């Protein structure tokens, strides 16, 4: 079928759009607006549409035979829409030189003023755009101004994460003029005002998105001129289409199915700083008892879960930082053993007696979370924990995870957009942070965190991170079940594939 199509195309000569590159993905984005996209899945669909000022360099990964796999190298930032940039000695003023003659897809000039307008839009969005623009330090951005093609960002205090944050889709440049004429934020949720390699030719929320190459793009043309992304929530349908060759790339398949397909198709495996985690409600007795939490953390059959849920596409760790972080070391995050005797001893030491009721919150339709919750329910029973599993719809789940007071144990798949301890801890360490998934609160650790981020050179912070990790492991506020090995299933004709933590949708680098 494919062959005949290609043949027909070469006979007709010029019909380039006849055979689009098809991506099937399990999870649709909740919005197409970069300033409002908030999760690592949603960000991915936005990324192909908008250019960031700077971007991470690429490193090559070992992939299946015949496929060149690249991935972000987060130790190295290179120019993108900004040709060059500089940071003042005191770390307070960032200056970016925007490429001459760049244009939006609309034809509007992509100059300094347009970039500043876009960054200001993110800053004032009140959503994740603000978080990224401030790089987690709210109120730190003093001004974003433009003169000709030079954009200047002025900060109140040094924030070395800002340059990382600017690589993200959330701060990529939006054609504000187009957004505003069409109705602003409401319109942007389902449409695009692109500056990136692609334009959004068609978008049906929850069904499909069609990307066409942007003729006005300042950079190299993408490898594929038309990409169709289908959102297919049912795993067996995803599996089937992958097998039939109906999809060039399949994302979000349950690992068990990936495992099965690995005989017939190419499977790319990229260890990622994303993780499956169980947040314990640290403010609710007896989960406020650190020894009790320790006991629970030893009563988790980590190996078994990795085999049965992740089919081996997983890494073990126990600490605040997953193994893919450069701050991770054996000392601050080695895997925890499954040891029921130790768990029982710790339980006795904790003084917690009698049955403990616990609600395990999972997202409806997520078979992996359900399986983990079922295993935990059984594994914690001998410790007297009477766990009940509550499956919530996607929206109710978000509600529970964003409510400041957590009263249930939340099973969650998560990961920071930026693989840096300061970024990760800034939303899960602070006692007051609404993003704190387990209400973890340790004043000493928080003080150490303050000292760490005051050190301007990120490389010099390692000692502080180690000290925080030691406290964290002692406190066991959450239970990292495993770090994910990201998997993509590629059809045999796909030769180029690229992984980005926030996405992984740098579509321009995918192709046949």
């Amino acid at each position, binding site marked *: 079928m494919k062959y005949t199509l290609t043949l027909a195309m070469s006979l007709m000569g010029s019909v380039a759009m006849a055979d689009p590159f098809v991506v099937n993905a399990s999870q649709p984005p909740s919005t197409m607006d970069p300033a409002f996209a908030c999760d690592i899945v949603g960000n991915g669909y936005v990324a192909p549409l908008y250019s960031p000022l700077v971007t991470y360099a690429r490193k090559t990964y070992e992939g299946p035979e015949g496929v060149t796999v690249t991935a972000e190298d987060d130790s190295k930032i290179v120019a993108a829409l900004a040709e060059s940039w500089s940071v003042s000695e005191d770390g307070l003023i960032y200056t970016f030189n925007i490429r001459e003659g760049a244009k939006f897809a609309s034809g509007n000039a992509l100059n300094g003023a347009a970039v500043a307008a876009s960054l200001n839009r993110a800053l004032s969005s009140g959503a994740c755009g603000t978080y990224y623009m401030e790089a987690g330090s709210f109120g730190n951005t003093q001004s974003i101004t433009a003169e000709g093609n030079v954009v200047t960002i002025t900060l109140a205090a040094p924030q070395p994460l800002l340059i990382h944050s600017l690589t993200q889709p959330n701060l990529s440049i939006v054609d504000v003029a187009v957004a505003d004429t069409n109705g602003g934020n409401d319109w942007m949720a389902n449409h695009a005002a692109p500056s990136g390699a692609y334009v959004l030719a068609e978008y049906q929320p929850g069904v499909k998105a069609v990307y066409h190459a942007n003729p006005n793009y300042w950079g190299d043309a993408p490898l594929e001129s038309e990409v169709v992304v289908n959102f297919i929530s049912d795993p067996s349908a995803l599996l089937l289409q992958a097998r*039939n060759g109906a999809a060039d790339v399949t994302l979000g398949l349950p690992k068990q199915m990936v495992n099965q397909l690995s005989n017939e198709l190419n499977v790319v495996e990229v260890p990622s700083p994303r993780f499956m985690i169980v947040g314990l409600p640290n403010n609710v007795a007896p989960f406020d008892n650190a020894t009790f939490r320790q006991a629970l953390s030893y009563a988790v059959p980590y190996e078994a879960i990795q085999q049965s849920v992740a089919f081996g596409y997983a890494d073990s760790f126990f600490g605040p930082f997953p193994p893919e972080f450069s701050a991770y070391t054996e000392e601050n995050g080695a895997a925890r053993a499954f040891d029921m005797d130790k768990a029982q001893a710790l339980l006795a030491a904790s003084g917690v007696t009698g049955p403990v009721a616990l609600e395990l919150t999972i997202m409806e339709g997520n078979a992996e979370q359900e399986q983990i919750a079922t295993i935990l329910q059984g594994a914690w029973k001998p410790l007297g924990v009477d766990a009940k599993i509550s499956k919530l719809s996607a929206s109710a789940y978000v*509600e529970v995870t964003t409510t400041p007071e957590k009263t249930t144990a939340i099973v969650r798949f998560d990961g920071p957009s930026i693989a840096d301890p300061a970024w990760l801890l800034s939303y899960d360490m602070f006692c007051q942070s609404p993003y704190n998934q387990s209400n973890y609160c340790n004043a000493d650790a928080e003080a150490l965190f303050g000292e760490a981020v005051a050190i301007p050179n990120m490389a010099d912070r390692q000692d502080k991170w180690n000290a925080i990790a030691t406290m964290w492991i002692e406190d066991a506020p959450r239970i990292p079940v495993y770090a994910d090995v990201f998997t993509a299933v590629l059809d045999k004709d796909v030769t180029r594939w690229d992984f980005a933590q926030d996405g992984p949708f740098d579509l321009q680098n995918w192709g046949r």
Partner: protein
Amino acid sequence: MTSLILSRLVSSFIALLGAALVAFVALRLAPGDAARLTLGAFATDEAVAALRSEMGLDQSILTQFYVYIRDFFTGDWGRSYALGEPVRSLLGQRFPATLELGLYAFCMAFVSALVLALWGAHRKGPISDGVPKALGVLALGVPQFWFGLVLLIVGFEMTGLFPGPAGRLPATVTPPAGPTGMYTVDALLHGDLKTFATALHHLFLPALALGLLPFGFLYRLLRANLEDVSGAPFALVARAHGQSRLRVMVATLLPNAIIPMLTASGLIFGQLLAGSVLVERVYNWPGAGMLVTQGVLQQDYAVVQVFILLSAVIYIVTNLIVDIVAASIDPRLAKGGA
């Protein structure tokens, strides 16, 4: 006759109101604040309160019921917050898929039930009578969704004879544009035989799974009726006139056996609608039934509520029509009050 129609109209109307009340009570009790669910997790309390009053949730229960009824009959069926679209347009988009599936399921069930019932009544023997009877009993005992999975395992996974659960057409085939939204019909209208065949191929397993229960039901109904009428005087007279058994069966008995089936058509519609909720999910069939299953799973009840009430409305209206038609065919019924 007029009085019969009038009394049937009145009792149907009462049943309709009652059904609406049942649906209202059952689903209004459902947990979750409809306004908050509509607006999402990040909504402010003021916005939720405003929407609550806009949705009439702060009104008295009686007013709410009145508004509910009025909205239902004026076609304002609310919004699915999970899909962000009005329920009416969602159901409108999905219904042709369900209708097409139901149609094929019904045809398969009806034809096979009829053939088997005639065969069994015509030639009474351990096989011709026993096998269909056993099939009928099995059909009523099989969980439809499970049967759908078994068909997939056998028909797709093991033998590869039929397509897997990938919906109505493979992803590579563009669905026919067309007036009905039923792919087989539209493909035929466009003279596109290849798409027609592909669509039919995709329809076969789900229609079989959906049709099994109506098959069992229809078979038993037809079989019992054929038994009844074959002993009736007019059948004996026909036989005495030297007509062959089969001829008598088809020409004389059939019309007499079919009337009771017509009166059961409300039930059959109900079976097909309820069945679509169970079967469509197994095949990823993008119909109204799958919308309902997803609605239940996502706790997005607007769609569920409308679908359930619609199923009752269809049942009541079908029965009303059938009663009136039956009474006009058979005047005895008009007196007895069906």
